[in-house]
């Protein structure tokens, strides 16, 4: 692909770093990224080393695996224990600890749990294993819900009656509202998630700039993308000209992808939804519309779900709200590691704890 080298050009990064320091001056500026892929990229490329100490980058609730609450996992575990169920999931969910077990532990005990790359693969499984109820774990933000909606429409049209989705999809803007309403978190700007925006468009952030004075820049994922976005945010803040800008024009048209949104609309409708760390948020999740209810796991498959307990000592919730960092957790790198995760934020490679564990110790600013 053309240009990719330039988006990783170390000299550009150094130049951007100097420019960021110059524009920021001595101002204390707090920025947050709300996309797991940004979190990962920021650590991987050591982006924090390019920023002056007065520009603080926080991680928000951008990892879909991390914000999925224990109760959802417990239900998935309960399904996996049923002999007639084949559970299909994105790989990240396998090791997330629920209240007392995880899907990988259940697989060790004989449960039929399969990792899939796409919801379309889960639908194929349903066609091959006609005597099983194939339950796909539908989690993820606006980026993922269109592909799950597509698989549900296909199942419906093709009459694949044994394909079910345990719907745990989330909608980002209501959660962002909760974050910026939190007085403990004084945020100046938001690095907006590029691939969520590829679907939603840039309009969903308008209320943050207009009503909350939060600078917003939709950003790509290469090092120069992130640094350029930081520079754009800081410039907005210093010039007191707060608005929504789009740094990632090569992938995000301002209007997003209306066709994908129509498909999601067709299958799902918004509803209150529970987030780890943020609690129940109105209209922040999706549920199946009645016309597709035949493919809804909860509506069609009963399960003995255990009582949900949270992990003692895990402060994932506060980390997802940007109020604490993994270093504040007494379990971090001691009893909680990627091999033996205590909380969800240590499991997914996009989780803040996992990113700190993997890259943080080699970076002086972590």
């Amino acid at each position: 692909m053309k240009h990719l080298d330039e988006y990783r050009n170390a000299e550009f990064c150094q130049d951007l770093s100097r420019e960021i320091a110059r524009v920021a001056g001595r101002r204390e500026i707090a920025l947050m990224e709300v996309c797991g892929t940004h979190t990962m990229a920021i650590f991987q490329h050591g982006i924090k080393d390019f920023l002056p100490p007065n520009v603080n980058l926080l991680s928000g609730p951008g990892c879909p695996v991390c914000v999925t609450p224990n109760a959802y996992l417990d239900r998935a575990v309960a399904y996996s224990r049923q002999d007639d169920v084949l559970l299909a999931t994105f790989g990240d969910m396998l090791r997330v600890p629920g209240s007392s077990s995880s899907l990988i532990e259940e697989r060790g005990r004989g449960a039929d749990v399969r990792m899939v790359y796409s919801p379309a693969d889960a639908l194929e499984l349903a066609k091959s294993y006609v005597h099983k109820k194939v339950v796909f774990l539908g989690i993820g933000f606006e980026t993922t819900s269109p592909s799950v909606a597509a698989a549900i429409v296909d199942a419906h049209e093709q009459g694949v009656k044994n394909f079910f989705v345990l719907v745990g999809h989330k909608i980002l803007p209501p959660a962002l509202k909760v974050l910026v309403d939190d007085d403990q978190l004084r945020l100046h700007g938001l690095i907006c998630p590029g691939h969520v925006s590829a679907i939603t468009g840039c309009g969903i952030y308008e209320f943050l700039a207009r009503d909350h004075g939060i600078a917003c820049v939709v950003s790509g994922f290469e090092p120069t993308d992130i640094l350029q976005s930081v520079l754009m945010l800081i410039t907005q803040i210093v010039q007191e000209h707060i608005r929504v800008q789009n740094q990632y024009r090569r992938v995000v048209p301002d209007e997003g992808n209306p066709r994908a949104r129509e498909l999601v609309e067709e299958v799902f409708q918004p509803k209150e939804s529970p987030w780890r760390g943020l609690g129940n948020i109105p209209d922040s999740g999706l549920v199946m519309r009645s016309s597709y209810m035949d493919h809804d796991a909860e509506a069609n498959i009963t399960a003995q779900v255990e009582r949900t307990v949270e992990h003692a000592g895990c402060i994932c919730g506060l980390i997802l709200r940007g109020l604490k960092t993994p270093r504040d957790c007494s379990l971090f790198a001691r009893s909680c590691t990627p091999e033996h995760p205590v909380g969800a934020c240590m499991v997914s490679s996009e989780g803040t704890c996992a990113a700190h564990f993997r890259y943080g110790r080699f970076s002086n600013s972590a």
Partner: protein
Amino acid sequence: MCISVPMKVLEIKGQRGIADIGGMSREIDLRLLSQVKVGDYVIVHAGFALQRLDQNEAEETLSLLREVLAHEAPG
């Protein structure tokens, strides 16, 4: 899990396509996009192409960047 990667479209058959990622080819679903052509780069997530990658905009973003950095005070 939110990983979305650019892939080059090699073949199109209706709403399905074959795309290349680092020398490996994968089947992808193209129904979320209109007007994809062979040779385009698309951003693929969970087997579905979400957007085209616009090469002109990619160049434009870089020239904006070069412009900003050219104005930067030396040192």
